[in-house]
């Protein structure tokens, strides 16, 4: 239902709610879905991380190089960085207003998140590899 009105606001174009990337509810759903996986993985990740402090390289390998810890940490890192990429996109859209700078920041975020997820996975595979 619409209400006809003769009021003219003097403004044109789309309002403030439209200046972001038009994907608000998709974004929220994505953050929620990834967080369901990250919650249990995060608890395990904390447990493993707290266990590597103060150890030698061999000690760290023994602690997290077994299949379950290594695979858990890989899953946490990959899903975590997909989630973090979306989250950081939102932070950039909120604070970086200059169009050129915003574009650069968004692009840098895409590649930084991918690089971290890939190197994280590779490093843990090296740690878990038999030697």
């Amino acid at each position: 239902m619409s209400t006809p009105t003769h009021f003219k606001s003097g403004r044109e174009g789309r309002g403030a709610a439209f200046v972001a990337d038009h994907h608000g509810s998709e974004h929220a759903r994505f953050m929620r879905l990834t967080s369901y996986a990250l919650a249990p993985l995060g608890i395990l990740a904390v447990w493993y991380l707290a266990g590597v402090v103060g150890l030698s390289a061999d000690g760290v390998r023994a602690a997290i190089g077994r299949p379950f810890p290594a695979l858990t940490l890989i899953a946490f890192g990959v899903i975590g960085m997909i989630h973090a990429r979306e989250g950081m996109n939102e932070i950039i859209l909120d604070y970086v207003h200059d169009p050129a700078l915003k574009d650069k920041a968004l692009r840098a975020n895409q590649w930084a998140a991918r690089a971290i997820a890939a190197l994280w996975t590779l490093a843990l595979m090296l740690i878990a590899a038999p030697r």
Partner: protein
Amino acid sequence: MDSSGSANADSDPHGAQRPLSPHLSVYRPMMTMMMSIAHRITGAGLYVAMALLTLLFIGVGMGGAFYAAFGWLGSSAIGGLLVFLITWAIYHHLLGGVRHFLWDRGLYMDPKGREALAIGTLVGGVGLTVLTWIAKSLAG
């Protein structure tokens, strides 16, 4: 835009002197607002933390010069403190996610409930972190 008097400092010579309608400054700092900010800060902080932990894992996985460069993140006192803070940030951010989960379902949205959830995030995050490290030192 409009031609009538605006409080825009760029177009109105007196704009800078005109009072702004108060927004942030009229807010009593509320726990929910603080925890909302903390969720964003821990989220962004964890992004950096994941990069640091990646360097540590590369050091351990590659050994040699890589371990010499990044091993301190796991073996030194400073590295240990960083990892401690990272585990707190994970817990705090995780509980923030649980808070969103409950609010999404319309639970604890009354003034008392939402404030309690926010305080629960803060206390729970610190509590779980301390408990984990105590349990870990007893187990290891």
